[in-house]
C-alpha cells in the first residue's frame, strides 16, 4: 500500500501534459514520408490528435487551428456525382482530388469514401464545435445503407466505381464489428438511423458473442477487447435510439434480449432472462486487467485497451470494478517523457492512436466528471465510481493529472458530446 502511494505521487508530477500537447500539435502540423502508408486513414490520425488535445484541455492549440481543420474536414466530404447521394468522408485530400471531374476521364474509376474515416471526420467536427450544417445527413445515411451486408455487418469502403453509367459496384471490402460501431455512431451523430437495418445489426452482434463472455469481430472468432467495445457501444447507441422510437423487433431469441440484458435495471433483466450475458461480459472485462488491460486472454497488456475495455465497463455501469491505481501505473509506464505521447507498451515508440486511447482510458478514472447531458440521455447511471483509494490530491483543480472525461459511447469528450446533444435537440421537431 505504501509503495502504491509513493508511485501515485511520483506519477502525478511525471505526467507530461505539455509534452503531450506538443506531440499532438507537431503531428497536426505535418508528418514525414513514413506516414505514406497511413495516408488512407489520415483523418483518423487527425481525430486522435484533435480529440487528444480536447481531453488535455489544450484549448489554445485547438482554437488556433479550428477554422483550418474544419474547412479541411469539409473538403474531405464526397461530392462526386457518381456516388449519388452517398456522401461519406474520405480519409485524405488525395482521394477527394482524384474524384474531381477534371481528373476522371470517361470510363475512369472513382474511389469511394470509408465508414471509418466518416466516423472520424464527424468526431473532429464535433470536437471543434462545428454545427454540422455542411454535413449531408441523408447522403450519409444512404452511404451507410449501401455498406451493410446481408449478415448485418458493415463493409468499410464504398467500392471502386466506374464512371461508365451502366456499371454497378461489384467488389467490396472487409466487413466486421468495427464498422458496425462506426455505422451506429454515425447514425447517432447525424440523428438519422435510416441507413442501419437494426434487427439485422442486432442479429450480427448477437451471433458474434463468444463462450468467453465478450464479442468477436465476427461470428465464431475470438473474443477481443476492440470488438467487444464496438459491440457494446453499438448496442448502447441502438438502445438509446429505440427508447425514443420503439421498433418492432423480431421475436427471435437473443437479438432482442441483448439490449435488455445489458442495460436495463436488474429487475427488468431478471424478468427477461437474457441468459446472463451481462454477468459473463463483465467477468470477461474485469479479467483483462493485469495492471493495464489486455485485449485478449493470455495476451500482454496494451495501453489502448484502457479505453476499449474501460469504456465497455463504463457503458455497463461497472467501472467501479477497475483497479484505477494499477491501471494508471501501467498507462504511465507507456508514457514517453521525452517526445510526449503514449505507446502500446513500455519502452516502445509513442503514436497518436495509443496516446489518444490511453488518455481516454485515463480520463475514465477521473474522480470529478461532470455528468454530461448525453450520458443522461443514453441512460447512464449518475453514480460515478468513487473508491476509497482516491488520494485527495486528485481532487485539486490544479492537479496536472485531471483530464476532460471521454464519452464512452461515441468516443468524443463529454463537452463535444454535450454539444452534439444540443445539436440533436435543436434539430428535433
Amino acid at each position, binding site marked *: 500500500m505504501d509503495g502504491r502511494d509513493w508511485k501515485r505521487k511520483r506519477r502525478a508530477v511525471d505526467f507530461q501534459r505539455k509534452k503531450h500537447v506538443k506531440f499532438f500539435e507537431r503531428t497536426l502540423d505535418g508528418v514525414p514520408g513514413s506516414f505514406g502508408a497511413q495516408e488512407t486513414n489520415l483523418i483518423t490520425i487527425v481525430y486522435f490528435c484533435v480529440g487528444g488535445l480536447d481531453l488535455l484541455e489544450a484549448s489554445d492549440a485547438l482554437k488556433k487551428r479550428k477554422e483550418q481543420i474544419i474547412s479541411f474536414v469539409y473538403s474531405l466530404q464526397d461530392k462526386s456525382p457518381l456516388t449519388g447521394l452517398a456522401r461519406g468522408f474520405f480519409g485524405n485530400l488525395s482521394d477527394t482530388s482524384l474524384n474531381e471531374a477534371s481528373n476522371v476521364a470517361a470510363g475512369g474509376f472513382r474511389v469511394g469514401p470509408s465508414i471509418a474515416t466518416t466516423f472520424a471526420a464527424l468526431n473532429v467536427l464535433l470536437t471543434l464545435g462545428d454545427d454540422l450544417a455542411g454535413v449531408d445527413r441523408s447522403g450519409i445515411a444512404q452511404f451507410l445503407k449501401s455498406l451493410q451486408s446481408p449478415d448485418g455487418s458493415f463493409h468499410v469502403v464504398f467500392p471502386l466505381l466506374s464512371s461508365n453509367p451502366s456499371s454497378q459496384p461489384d467488389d467490396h471490402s472487409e466487413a466486421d464489428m468495427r464498422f458496425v460501431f462506426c455505422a451506429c455512431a454515425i447514425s447517432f451523430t447525424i440523428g438519422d438511423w435510416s441507413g442501419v437495418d437494426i434487427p439485422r445489426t442486432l442479429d450480427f452482434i448477437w451471433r458474434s458473442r463468444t463462450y468467453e463472455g465478450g464479442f468477436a469481430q465476427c461470428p465464431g472468432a475470438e473474443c477481443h477487447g476492440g470488438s467487444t467495445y464496438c459491440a457494446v457501444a453499438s448496442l448502447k447507441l441502438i438502445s438509446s435510439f429505440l427508447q425514443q422510437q420503439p421498433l418492432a423487433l423480431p421475436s427471435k431469441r437473443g437479438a432482442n434480449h441483448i439490449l435488455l440484458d445489458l442495460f436495463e435495471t436488474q429487475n427488468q433483466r431478471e424478468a427477461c432472462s437474457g441468459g446472463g450475458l451481462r454477468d459473463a461480459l463483465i467477468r470477461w472485462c474485469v*479479467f483483462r486487467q493485469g495492471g493495464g488491460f489486455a485485449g485478449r486472454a493470455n495476451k500482454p497488456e496494451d495501453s489502448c485497451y484502457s479505453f476499449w475495455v474501460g469504456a465497455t465497463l463504463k457503458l455497463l455501469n461497472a467501472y467501479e470494478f477497475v*483497479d484505477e491505481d494499477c491501471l494508471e501505473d501501467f498507462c504511465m509506464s507507456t508514457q514517453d517523457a521525452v517526445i510526449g505521447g503514449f505507446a502500446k507498451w513500455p519502452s516502445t515508440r509513442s503514436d497518436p492512436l495509443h496516446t489518444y486511447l490511453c488518455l481516454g482510458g485515463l480520463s475514465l478514472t477521473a474522480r470529478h466528471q461532470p455528468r454530461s447531458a448525453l450520458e443522461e440521455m443514453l441512460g447512464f447511471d449518475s453514480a460515478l465510481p468513487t473508491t476509497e483509494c482516491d488520494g485527495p490530491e486528485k481532487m485539486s483543480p490544479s492537479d496536472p493529472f485531471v483530464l476532460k472525461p471521454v464519452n464512452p459511447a461515441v468516443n468524443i469528450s463529454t463537452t463535444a458530446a454535450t454539444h452534439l446533444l444540443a445539436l440533436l435537440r435543436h434539430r428535433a421537431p
Partner: protein
Amino acid sequence: MEESDKQHGPGDATSKVHKILGVEGDATDKTLPVSSGSYQPIPKSSTAAAPDTDSDSDSDEEPTNVAYDYGTSEEWKDVNPVPLTAGSVMPIAFTPQFQMVFGYFRALLATGELSARGLQLCEDAARLNPANYAVWMYRRKVLAHLAVDLTGELQYISRVIEKNQKNYQVWYHRQKIVELLKDPSKEFDFTAKMLRKDAKNYHVWQYRQYILRYFDIFDHNELEFCDGLIRADPFNNSAWMHRYYVLVELPRACGRPSLLEGPALEREIQYTVAQLMGQAHNESPWSYLRGILRDHWAEHFPTVQAICSDLYSQNIRSPYLLAFMIDMYDEDIAQGFQATTDIQKGELLARVKAICSDLAVKHDVVRKAYWNYLSQQLAKKYERFLPAV
C-alpha cells in the same frame, strides 16, 4: 465493357503477366486477352522498399530504393501522373518514390486503364501502402479483365502477406482470390505457416475459419492442428477458441449438428482437464471448460467438481480455478445437483462467499471490488438459503 479497348500496347503479354505474377513453368499455355509493351517487370522480390507497417515498428526511414522509374520510362510516357494532394492539416512529406508511384497509379484509375502494366504498378503501390483499398480493388478489376491465371496471384499475395501479416486489406484480397479459384487446398499450409510466425495473429485465425466456413470443410483434421499449437503453448487462447469453432461454431454456421455431443464432449472435458492438471493458472482452458459445459452441467457435475477439489487440495489458488468454483457452486445451488436441501445450499453459499473473500483479500486483489460485488450479488440471489440470524 468499354475497358476492353483500354489495353495497353502490342506485344507478347502472356509471359509478361505471368512473370509479374510470379507464375513459373508451363503456366503460359493459357491464352490471355492481353497485350503489353516492352517494360521491364520489377524483380519479384524487390521488397526492400516495403515500409514496415507493423504498428510497433520504429522505422521512420523513408523507403529508399526505386523499384521502377516510371518517370523516365518509355513504357509510361503516355501517362500523365495525377499527383497526390497533401492537405493543410497533417500534410505528409511524401517521398519522391511514393509520389511517383501513386501519381501513375492514380492516372490509371482516372483513365480506367485495365492493363498488365497496371498490375506491375499495383505491386509497387501496394508495397508502399498496402492499406490503400483502391490499389487492391483496382488490382482485382485488372485480374478479372485480363482473365489472369490466379494461381500466380495466390503466390504473389502470399509474399505480400508475409511482409504485412496484420494488414486487413491483404488478407481480404487473398480471400477474394481463393473464392475465385474455388480451391482452398493451399490455405491450410499457408495459414499454418503464418501461425508459426505468430500463433495468436487474429487475422490468420479469422481467415482460416472463413475458409472452413466458406468451403464447408468439416473433414479437415483441425482438432489435431489445435492440439499441436496448444502443446506448443497451452496459453494460446486463439487455439483453444479454434477448438470450439470447429466443434460448435462451424457446424452451426454450415447448418450441421454440433460435434460436441456425448462421447465428444467427454473427450473434450478429459482433454481440457489434462491441460489444467499441468497448468491450473491458465485462463484459456478454464474458459473453454466453462464454454463446453454450458447446458451440460448436470451430466458432468461430479467429474468437474472432483477435479476442482483435487486442484484446490493441492493448494492451488489460481483466480481462474476459484472463479470456476464459484460458477460451479452457483450452478449447484440453482439446480441442486448435489446440494439438494436448503441447509446444503446455505453451506455452499457460505463457501462461495468465503472464496470471494479470499480472492478479494489474498489471491486476486486487483479485482477486489469485483469479488466483493459478486459475493453480495450471490448472497442476494440465494438469500432464502442463508441461515436465519
